[in-house]
Structures are given as structure tokens and as C-alpha cells.
């Protein structure tokens, strides 16, 4: 009975009784909405009062009676109300009914995310200011009060008897993402400012600036706070080991989209700056090199985040791996396509005789960098030479990817065509010069060209897939599984979910059964079953009953 999720997450035993709906749902929505509102108002009132307490000895003149009255009213009226509401919801009787409802984890998720964001932003801002101006209690109160609100919700989320049974691990996953964003952002700014300082020292162009160590240290405060937050949730709470749908989506987002996009934009901007230097840009060197620090830092931090998460993804299911790969192919494709668009835009810019030409060269170089970097990344992730091999056609999620690309292409085409049409008609009605039409619609024309190329390529892939003899990609044949078993069945639940993709509900037997069937036997029994809802009874002596249900 050792499952991989038992390392850190105390997965609450799946509840047997689903929550009662009907009027109870309305009652829950209203109760939790009121609870959230009163908690927010009470927290803002208490933090306002605490702020006054902290800065009491520093105050010289105060006529802010309204502010004080607001804080007092918020704290003294919303506070007790929040306490009463919480007592009503937290009672054993109420929680027994609400525990399996989805509204309970949604409330916890929203409130802990709000509290975490408010407290961390307040605390980190305060710490960054303290580096420059020294100890100042003002502003600290918000951070402390909201940190307590967060801790309170964290405790409820992990309560052994009353924690929600639905959406497990969602709030910690979001918290780990917030931590990672602070960490990556803080590092990007810290490293970027160091590089900028080095460049400035070489060029000696800076006239007025705050000391570099101060700026770097301020960014590092955010990075350190984010690192703590991320480490706590990712390792201690165990988001890393979670295999729920929510965590998988998060992983695909981080490894396939966010870190990839950060890396790509960093390399693109760095390459643009280098190319502009090499081709002798007309603008001053300091202006050309201005984005260099942030660009190099983004590329480096993006690469580190990507490498780390790519290793995590490698240990996940085939679906997660292929979704990550497809997502990163899509991100690179977007960069390459916008590069083509900007290149066409720069080409069209030369067709009109402008009075002042602007900086077409840097526009072109920017487009070319995006095209080269995006194109190279796309080549690596999509591998176009093997794009139509049977094993690639059978990749899970490939059709979804193609459909998303068609949808986005259609959207971009629609918008650009509208812009071009508008410019065309206004040119015809307005009798401007012929150049002005191209001048005003060249951005749209560039994007349209890129979109048409993207859609054409993927349409050929799509047609080829249809003609190939590879069967339809794996379809989910079972919608819902209700499993009757005894004891801790989390391993079975994970295995059934992984094998069928179905939603699994567990009904726990009141008394234990002799020699229940093991995980492999249950999964094997479900093989080839095709139904919206299946009842699986793990019986005595390894017997498995599979019963198809209606609806």
C-alpha cells in the first residue's frame, strides 16, 4: 500500500458520500461567499488598525477620523461575523455535509491564493524598501495579517478530518507557481541589473543611478522569498509528486509554455541587439544595448527553469510528455510566425517613400531574430522531417494541437483581414496616396502572410494524418468509474485514472475483504470496456465485477 503520493501529501481518504445538491448547493455558495467577503473586510480592518499601532509614535498630525472609523467598523463588525460564519461552516455536522462539495475547495483555493498574493507582495515590497530606507514599520501590518489569514486557510486545507476531498493539491500547486514566478522574476531582474551595470561601466554613459547593489538586493529579496515559497510547496507539501490533473496542467504550462517563452524571448532580444551592433545601427550604442541585461537574464533563467522541469516531465505519463512537447512546439511556432510577419512588415515599409524613414533596419533585425530562434526551436521540438511517421501521427493530443492551430490561425486571419479591409475602404473613400494603404496595413499584411503559411503547413499535415492508416488516437472509453473497495485504495485510483482517463469515485466497504484483487487485476478487468459509467466491485479472493451503468 505504498503509493508514490504517500511521500508527503496526506491524501484525504476519498469520501464515500457525495455532497447533497439542491438547496444545499445554494446554501453553500451563499455561505462561502459571505465568509470570503467578511474575512477580506475583517483582514483589511485589522491590518489598518495594526498599521496605526505600528506608526503611533511616528505620527505628528492626524485628522484621519474617517480612515480610523472605517478600520474600526471593518474589524469590529466584519470580524465577529466572519467568526460566526466560520463556526457555522466548520462545525462537524456542517463539514460532514460540505466536505465532498466542490465549493469548499474552491473557497479555500481562492482565499488562500488571495491571502498569499496580498501578504507576499506586501512583505516583499516592505523588505525591498527596508533595504533602502531602513526599518519602517509602516506597511508591515498588511503582510502580517494576510500571512495569518493564509496560514489559517492552509491549516484548514490540510486538516485531517475536514479537509476537502475534491480538487486535492490545487491550492499548493498554485502557491508553488506563485513562488516560482517570484523566484524567476527576481532572478531575471537581479542578473539583468548586474549585466546592465557591467555594460554601463564599459560605456560609462550613466549619469544618475541608484547604487547597483541596492537594486540587485531588492530583486534578490523577491527571488529569495519566492524560492522559499516554491521550495516549501514543491518539495515539503509535495506538489512535485502529485499526479492530479491540475498539477499536470501546471507542469505543462511551466515546462511547455512559460519557461520556453521566457527563454525564447531572451534569446531573440539578445540576438537582435547583437545584430544591430554588427550592422552598425544608427541609434546610440547605449540605446541598442539597453535591453541586453534583461534579455540575457531572461534567457538564462528561462533555460534553468526549463531544464529542471523537463526532467520532472520526463518522469510523467506519456500524455503529459507529449502535451509538453506539443505546447513548446506551439510556442516556438508562434515566435517564428511573428518573425515572418515582422520581416514582411519591414519589407513592405521600404515600398513607400517616407519623409522620415524611421528605423526599418532594427525592425527587420528583430523580425529575423524571432524567425531564426523560433524556427530553430520549432525544428527541434516538432521535428518536421519525421512529422508524418506513424508513431508521430499516433501521438496523444496531436489532433487537439492541430485544431488549436487552425482555430488561432482563423482568429488571426479574421482580425488582420478586418484591419486590412478597414484600411482599404478608408483609403478608397478618403483618396489618400496609394502608398498610404500599404503603410497603414503592413503590420496586418505581415501577420496575415505568416498565418497563411502556418495554416497551409498544418493543413497538409492534417490531410496526411487522415490518409495514413494509423487508427484514431487513443480515445477515452470510460467516463466515470465508481470503485467499491476496502482500505486505502489510492494506488488503485491512480492506476485506473492513468489507464482509462476516467474520473474515479471510491465507495469504501464497511468491513475489510480477504485478499482483494491487486491493482493490475482491476486495470486488466477494465480493458476493452466501453461505457459512460462503470461500477467496479473489488471482491473476495481477487474477483473483480465490472458492471456497466446507465448515464
Amino acid at each position, binding site marked *: 500500500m505504498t503509493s508514490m503520493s504517500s511521500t508527503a501529501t496526506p491524501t484525504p481518504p476519498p469520501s464515500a458520500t457525495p455532497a447533497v445538491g439542491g438547496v444545499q448547493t445554494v446554501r453553500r455558495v451563499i455561505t462561502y461567499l459571505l465568509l470570503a467577503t467578511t474575512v477580506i473586510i475583517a483582514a483589511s480592518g485589522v491590518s489598518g488598525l495594526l498599521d496605526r499601532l505600528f506608526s503611533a509614535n511616528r505620527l505628528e498630525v492626524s485628522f484621519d477620523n474617517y480612515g480610523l472609523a472605517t478600520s474600526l467598523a471593518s474589524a469590529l463588525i466584519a470580524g465577529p461575523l466572519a467568526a460566526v460564519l466560520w463556526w457555522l461552516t466548520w462545525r462537524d455536522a456542517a463539514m460532514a455535509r460540505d466536505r465532498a462539495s466542490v465549493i469548499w475547495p474552491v473557497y479555500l483555493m481562492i482565499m488562500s491564493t488571495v491571502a498569499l498574493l496580498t501578504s507576499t507582495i506586501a512583505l516583499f515590497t516592505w523588505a525591498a524598501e527596508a533595504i533602502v530606507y531602513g526599518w519602517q514599520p509602516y506597511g508591515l501590518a498588511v503582510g502580517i495579517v494576510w500571512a495569518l489569514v493564509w496560514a489559517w486557510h492552509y491549516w484548514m486545507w490540510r486538516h485531517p478530518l475536514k479537509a476537502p476531498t475534491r480538487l486535492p493539491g490545487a491550492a499548493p500547486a498554485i502557491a508553488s507557481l506563485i513562488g516560482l514566478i517570484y523566484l524567476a522574476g527576481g532572478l531575471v531582474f537581479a542578473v539583468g541589473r548586474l549585466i546592465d551595470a557591467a555594460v554601463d561601466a564599459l560605456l560609462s554613459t550613466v549619469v544618475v543611478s541608484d547604487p547597483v547593489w541596492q537594486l540587485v538586493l531588492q530583486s534578490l529579496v523577491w527571488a529569495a522569498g519566492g524560492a522559499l515559497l516554491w521550495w516549501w510547496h514543491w518539495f515539503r507539501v509535495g506538489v512535485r509528486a502529485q499526479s492530479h490533473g491540475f498539477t499536470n496542467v501546471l507542469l505543462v504550462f511551466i515546462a511547455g509554455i512559460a519557461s520556453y517563452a521566457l527563454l525564447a524571448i531572451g534569446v531573440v532580444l539578445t540576438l537582435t541587439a547583437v545584430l544591430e551592433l554588427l550592422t552598425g545601427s544608427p541609434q546610440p550604442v547605449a540605446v541598442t544595448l539597453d535591453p541586453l541585461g534583461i534579455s540575457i537574464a531572461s534567457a538564462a533563467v528561462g533555460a534553468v527553469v526549463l531544464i529542471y522541469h523537463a526532467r520532472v516531465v520526463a518522469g510523467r505519463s506519456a500524455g503529459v510528455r507529449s502535451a509538453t512537447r506539443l505546447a513548446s512546439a506551439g510556442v516556438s511556432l508562434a515566435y517564428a510566425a511573428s518573425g515572418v510577419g515582422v520581416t514582411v512588415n519591414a519589407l513592405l515599409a521600404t515600398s513607400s517613400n517616407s519623409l522620415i524613414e524611421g528605423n526599418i533596419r532594427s525592425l527587420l533585425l*528583430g523580425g529575423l531574430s524571432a524567425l531564426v530562434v523560433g524556427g530553430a526551436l520549432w525544428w527541434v521540438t516538432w521535428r518536421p522531417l*519525421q512529422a508524418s511517421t506513424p508513431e508521430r501521427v499516433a501521438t496523444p493530443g496531436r489532433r487537439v494541437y492541430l485544431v488549436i492551430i487552425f482555430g488561432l490561425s482563423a482568429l488571426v486571419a479574421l482580425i488582420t483581414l478586418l484591419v486590412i479591409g478597414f484600411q482599404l475602404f478608408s483609403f478608397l473613400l*478618403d483618396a489618400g496616396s496609394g502608398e498610404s494603404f500599404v503603410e497603414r496595413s503592413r503590420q496586418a499584411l505581415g501577420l496575415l502572410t505568416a498565418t497563411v503559411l502556418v495554416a497551409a503547413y498544418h493543413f497538409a499535415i492534417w490531410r496526411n494524418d487522415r490518409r495514413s492508416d494509423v487508427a484514431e488516437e487513443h480515445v477515452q472509453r470510460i467516463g466515470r468509474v465508481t470503485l467499491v473497495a476496502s482500505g486505502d485504495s489510492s494506488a488503485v485510483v491512480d492506476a485506473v485514472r492513468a489507464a482509462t482517463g476516467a474520473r474515479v469515485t471510491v465507495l469504501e466497504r464497511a468491513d475489510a475483504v480477504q485478499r482483494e484483487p491487486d491493482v493490475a487485476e482491476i486495470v486488466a478487468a477494465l480493458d476493452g470496456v466501453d461505457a459512460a459509467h462503470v461500477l467496479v466491485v473489488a471482491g473476495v479472493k481477487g474477483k473483480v465485477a465490472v458492471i456497466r451503468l446507465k448515464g
Partner: protein
Amino acid sequence: MVHADFMQEPAARPDRTLIAILSIIGAIVVIALVVVFTRGGPVDVDPTTPEGVVQSYSLAIVDGDYSTARDFLPAELRENCDRADPNTIQGLRMTVISSTINDDTAVVRVSMERGSGDFGGSSYVSEEVFSLVLEGGVWKIESAPWDLTLCYNQGIGE
């Protein structure tokens, strides 16, 4: 692996499409590089026309050569100019939309693209108007877009 075998038939079509698309992109890139880097820069418009005056005046402002720019203003404005704050102008692009002459006044409509233009997104385009008057047979700038204005009272007098 047997890559070479099935590369022949089923994979033929996307490969052809891929080659076609890559050649289109290659052609665009080569043409754009050649055209952008061999072009000399903006054409010098005949300085006696309204567009020519607009060009010379705007170039002088962009270069920060305010004394030259002042020469393109009408005499009355030159004498009592209420100096505007100078702007730093980066990466301005200006194209004529139309130019209309009515006896001794002229209106030049231009499209102005401001901003660094890095990656095409951060710039914004607007349509602006220069009005000019004929003074002693020479076109003079009476009013200009706000960021190319030299005097606050430009275009107010007459």
C-alpha cells in the same frame, strides 16, 4: 529504424509543402535583407513643395537642430515664439498620406509611426496634419503635430 522506407510515400506530401513554405520564407528574408540594407534612406523630396518643407522641418526637429527648424516658420512666429519643451524623438517614421494646396495655404496629412519598432509591437501609428502658408513664394510651417512643435503658439496666430 526504418525511417528511409516510409519517408518515400506517406511523408511525401507534407515534405513538399514544407519545402514550398521554407522557400517562400527564405525568399522573403533574402529580399527583405537586400532591399532594407541597400536602400539609401528616405528620398529627398523637392524642398520647394509643401511635402519637401515638411520633410526638412521635421528632420531638423528630430536632429535637434532648432535654429534650422525655426527658419521654416512664418516670420511672425519666428519673432515671438513661445518655445515649447523639446522632445526626444526616437525611431520616428513619417509617410505622406495626401497633400492639398489651396492658393496660398496647404495641408499635408502624414502617417506617423512612433516608438522603437522593436519586434513591431511597441510602436503606434497615428495620422497627423501639417498646415502651411505661402510667404514670399516659400512654404512655411504654420502648425505641426504636437511632438514636432517648436513654439506653443504655433498655429494659433494669423
